[in-house]
């Protein structure tokens, strides 16, 4: 198109050239130097608080709605229920990101393709001001470590409702007869390796873990830092990470029941304990599941169950929790205070008691634990068609749980994309398709790109 240019009368062009340049300069100057005057204009909305929720939350939302209605007679809750999780995800993702969406956002860590990118583009508003403003709210009532996972760049964008720690449960007797002794103080990857070596060597079709945790869980459990979202940096090319990766391939997976075998048992993991395929029951991440697993152990072996976390990288490292359901307030909501009250209600004991993982509300936690230590014994419950006489959670077991809880040092919000990358790469490595360096490089490069976009 040079030729058009040639074809045009040059005076137009001259004018044009300068005009364009001048225009752009002025534009830049103006917009750039208007300074940083914050004018938080908000969309004027009616008195309806918008929520998107999954259908199954209905039962306890009815509670919430009741309470809400007598608290705010002049406002209404307009809840849109979804029966299809993907649809809910899609709607939340797109609408929030494009400045629309519900006022009060209840989501789990799988909702956003990348929760941190969402945070970066500022979809949620900082909750700290509200919390500071309100004396009735006492951080002490909640698990600090877990609560703080909602903080990003010093702003508390989201608040977790429940969290889980990858734990597995077994009995001391069972460990002994398999020639394993786990010293919880020393419980780290090295310890794991040593203990499992001879266990695996006398090669029977016996496994330590009753499932193959995905690499991401194992890595998170190991407590090494490999992603720093705030400064968008990642540290995969470290001896620690390499060791974790290798132990995962060489020790951890070998000591775990392979998926296809596990498939045969379906949900009935206790069968594996019965026929001595696995000697632990894994992924017991809520007091209820622990109670049940413990009962099974007692039912089968007549021994008390003990709970252990996944091994950490070294014994000094603390354990890691992962939040599940979280709540936040849309930064464009013009009912922020009300939404905040909703959050407080969600954190209140009676609702926290409903949570399917560990509740952040310590009171609720204790109450649940108390229940399972006391009243919950000697019932006959029917689990997947197998009747089970339950056993209360013993003092020791409760002790284990509390130790684990007290030794929590961090809480990781899982970022879907990155965790998928981790697992894919690890899978390829285990498959022998990738070399160690290939894994590291791929992770380094892709995650780096991803974090910096």
């Amino acid at each position, binding site marked *: *198109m*040079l*030729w058009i*240019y*040639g074809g045009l009368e040059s005076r137009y062009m001259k004018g044009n*050239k300068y005009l*364009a340049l001048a225009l*752009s300069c002025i*534009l830049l100057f103006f*917009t*750039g*130097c*208007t*300074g*940083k*005057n*914050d*004018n*938080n*204009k*908000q*969309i004027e909305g009616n008195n309806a608080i918008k929520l998107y929720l999954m259908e199954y939350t209905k039962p306890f939302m009815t509670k919430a709605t009741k309470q809400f209605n007598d608290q705010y007679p002049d406002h209404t809750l307009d809840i849109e229920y979804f029966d299809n999780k993907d649809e809910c995800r899609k709607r939340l993702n*797109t609408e929030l*990101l*494009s*400045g629309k969406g519900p006022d009060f956002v209840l989501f789990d860590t799988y909702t956003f*393709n*990348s929760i941190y*990118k*969402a945070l*970066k*583009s*500022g*979809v949620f508003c900082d909750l700290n001001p509200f919390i500071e403003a309100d004396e009735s709210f006492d951080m002490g009532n909640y698990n600090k470590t877990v609560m703080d996972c909602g903080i990003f760049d010093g702003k508390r964008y989201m608040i977790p409702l429940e969290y889980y720690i990858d734990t597995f449960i077994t009995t001391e007797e069972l460990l002994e007869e398999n020639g394993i002794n786990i010293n919880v103080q020393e419980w780290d990857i090295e310890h794991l390796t040593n203990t499992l070596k001879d266990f695996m060597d006398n090669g029977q079709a016996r496994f330590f873990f009753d499932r193959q945790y995905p690499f991401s869980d194992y890595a998170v459990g190991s407590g090494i830092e490999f992603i720093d979202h705030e400064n*968008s940096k990642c540290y995969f090319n470290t001896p620690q990470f390499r060791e974790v990766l290798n132990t995962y391939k060489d020790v951890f997976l070998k000591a775990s029941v392979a998926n296809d075998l596990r498939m045969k048992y379906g949900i009935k993991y206790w069968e594996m304990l019965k026929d001595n395929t696995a000697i632990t029951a894994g992924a017991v991440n809520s007091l209820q599941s622990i109670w049940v697993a413990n009962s099974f152990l007692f039912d089968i072996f007549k021994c008390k169950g003990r709970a252990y976390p996944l091994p950490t990288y070294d014994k000094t490292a603390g354990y890691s929790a992962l939040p599940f359901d979280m709540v936040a307030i849309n*930064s*464009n909501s013009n009912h922020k205070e009300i939404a905040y009250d909703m959050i407080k209600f969600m954190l209140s004991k009676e609702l926290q008691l409903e949570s399917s993982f560990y509740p952040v509300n310590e009171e609720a936690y204790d109450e649940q634990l108390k229940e399972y230590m006391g009243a919950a014994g000697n019932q006959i419950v029917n689990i997947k068609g197998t009747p089970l006489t339950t056993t209360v959670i013993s003092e020791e077991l409760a002790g284990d749980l509390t130790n684990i809880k007290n030794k929590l040092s961090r809480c990781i919000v899982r970022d879907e994309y990155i965790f998928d990358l981790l697992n894919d790469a690890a899978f390829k490595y285990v498959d022998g*398709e990738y070399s160690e360096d*290939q894994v590291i490089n*791929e992770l380094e*490069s*892709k995650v*780096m*790109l*991803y*974090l*910096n*976009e």
Partner: protein
Amino acid sequence: MKIRHREMVAGMIFAAPCIAGFAVFFAVPFIISVFYCFTEGISAISFVGFDNFKGLLESVSFRLAAMNTLKFNLISVPFILLLSLAIALLLNSRLKYISIFKSLFILPLVIPVASIVLVWQILFGDYGAINGILNAFNIETVDWLNSSWSFFILVSLYVWKNCGYNIILFIAGLNSIPLDYYEAANIDGAGRLKRFLKITVPYLIPTGFFVFIISIINSFKVFREAYLLAGSYPHQDIYMLQHFMNNNFDNLNYQRLSTAAFLIVSLIVILVFFLFSFEERYGMNFRN
């Protein structure tokens, strides 16, 4: 006078639809997006001056993407220029069936990449044909698409796709050279090379310019190929500006997007200005 006026009105009416469309879909929103460059927050907007630019330029990914794009242009454009020129010269000779060859060379232009990319994957996949051959000679195989080779693979795809376009233009350029020049040169007893340098090259310079620009423009569109070849997070070396932007569309970071867009636009504008003036200065000189 009156007529001129009516003329003007008529012209405006004729031009109205496209100008209106242009304004609605490009100009106005673009100005809005320029405004976004200096703000943050989704709809609770606040001005942050040049922070976005700072942030963007600090972002490793953006810099990488920009570098890659630049690198791609520097390598692929000259290459495709020479190649297509060579082919054009070949095709310009009066051989039999030349028209068939012509159409053959142009064909890739219309073939959708999407349906061709498969072949590249077969060739360069980790278990692709080439690795198969390497393996047969027990040479260590390479995961082409996940290594720095991917860059050249992309180049090859780009060349394959856009060669035809340039060939056409060059042929047009060659045809526009009056033959008697050559005859005159012949009479002067100038050698083939001399003729090429003295006549063909100078006359092709303008075309060359145009092809040059077109190639650059097309190289900006190479994202299509890269995406189809290796998805939205390809190997570092073929992570282009377009990837950067497309991925940012996923989490709709308006500020980022518009800032990046603005930077690219101003870059291209400057480039075009530069080329125009360059051509203005030298392009003419060759003519006389």
